[in-house]
């Protein structure tokens, strides 16, 4: 309660409040998204929308949105759409990232990379590393190096599920 009061007070002080919510359109994030006649996965299928397709937002619930697609309308899971069309990510592992996997002598550089993203100097990053002996930045670099392309992943997932479904028919 105290925290809410504190946050609310600070929001008032800074002039920031909740942003306007209801957008005119939403966009399909998945390769396909099913529109149903009712907000249930076992309801009658109306139509399938494709990735990136714009849907007219007609009613916004917590878990299901009622949307229009050309002349048809139906309910889509709120998880499968976003308020904005696909755009860039906020990854900090872009042009300034480097692969340090397996090279312990470059560990400080990895932390400097992380530090640079925070605006820290390399010296400051070394201090941070020395201060936080409980962290393992080298392992984190390996985790980041192993990431896969989201399009490839989506295709892998759906292809496997579709294949499994066909095999059972």
């Amino acid at each position: 309660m105290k925290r809410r009061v504190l946050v609310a007070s600070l929001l008032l002080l800074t002039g920031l409040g909740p942003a306007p919510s209801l957008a005119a359109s939403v966009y399909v994030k998945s390769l396909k998204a099913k529109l149903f006649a009712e907000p249930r996965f076992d309801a009658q299928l109306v139509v399938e929308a494709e990735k990136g397709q714009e849907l007219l937002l007609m009613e916004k619930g917590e878990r299901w949105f009622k949307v229009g697609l050309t002349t048809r309308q139906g309910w889509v899971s709120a998880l499968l759409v976003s308020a904005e069309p696909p755009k860039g990510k906020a990854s900090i592992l872009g042009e300034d990232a480097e692969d340090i996997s397996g090279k312990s002598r470059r560990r400080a550089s990895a932390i400097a990379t992380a530090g640079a993203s925070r605006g820290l100097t390399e010296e400051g990053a070394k201090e941070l590393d020395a201060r936080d002996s409980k962290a393992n930045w080298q392992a984190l670099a390996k985790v980041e190096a192993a990431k896969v392309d989201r399009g490839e992943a989506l295709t892998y997932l759906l292809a496997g599920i579709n294949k499994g479904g066909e095999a059972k028919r």
Partner: protein
Amino acid sequence: MRSRILFTAILLLMAAATLAGAAPNPRARLSQGSDGQYSADDTRAEVDFGREVAARVLGRFPLLEEKELTRYINLVGAGLAAAGGREDLEFKFAVLNTDIPNAFATPGGYVFITKGALTRMKNEAELSAVLAHEIAHVSRRHIVRELNIKSSGSDVAGGLARVISGVGDVSRVAMGKMVDLAEEILFTRGYALDDENQADRDAVALVGAFGYDPGGLLTYLERTDKTSGREPASVKATHPAWAERKSRIETTLAADGLDKTKGQDMKERFDENVKLR
């Protein structure tokens, strides 16, 4: 706990005030983010912070370095995240080499699943449900909201970017305090009950929408409840009691029309890629 959060908020205010006279951070420009309340700079601050927490997770549990397994977990997780996660993040997935059954996610999209969890799973539907649950914690910004991690130029309440970019003692103490609190959520006290329930609801809906067996979360958690203790950082220690949780998941399945849906369990592909027995 609340007094600690208040203390942290006050510490952040002090840090922001201390750094207010410094040159403005070029990244602190307010811009439109993935939802109306968060800017792109907030997301950057979240990723920076999430990296710190993820490095701590890996300091606590060793990384399981099995290339093919890691790639499989990434393909399944990133596919789910591409369809049902936040667009502004690149999710990354890894396996932790511990027999404690659990999964963890840090802000910014770092998702960890333990070897102990994988050895208790029977198929990909169960794996997907657990990863989807963690993706939901990130996408819903559960830790971000609880710790009030924001970064816009005029937001002194969050002001994490200024704390992150600062090099003074106050900034370092504030940052360390925030990371400690995130660790406490992950390994000791768990998320708020409402956040756990929301993550469960999102998980079953997402795997159901994909065509997986939507009961995967139930079967995995039931098995884990029977075969694990309450050791620190375990799923029992950091999640709601199983009987209550089961009832809520079943209610969600029925409400979404998923209770009678079978879906695919993808056992064959899971067995081909997960050989940890």
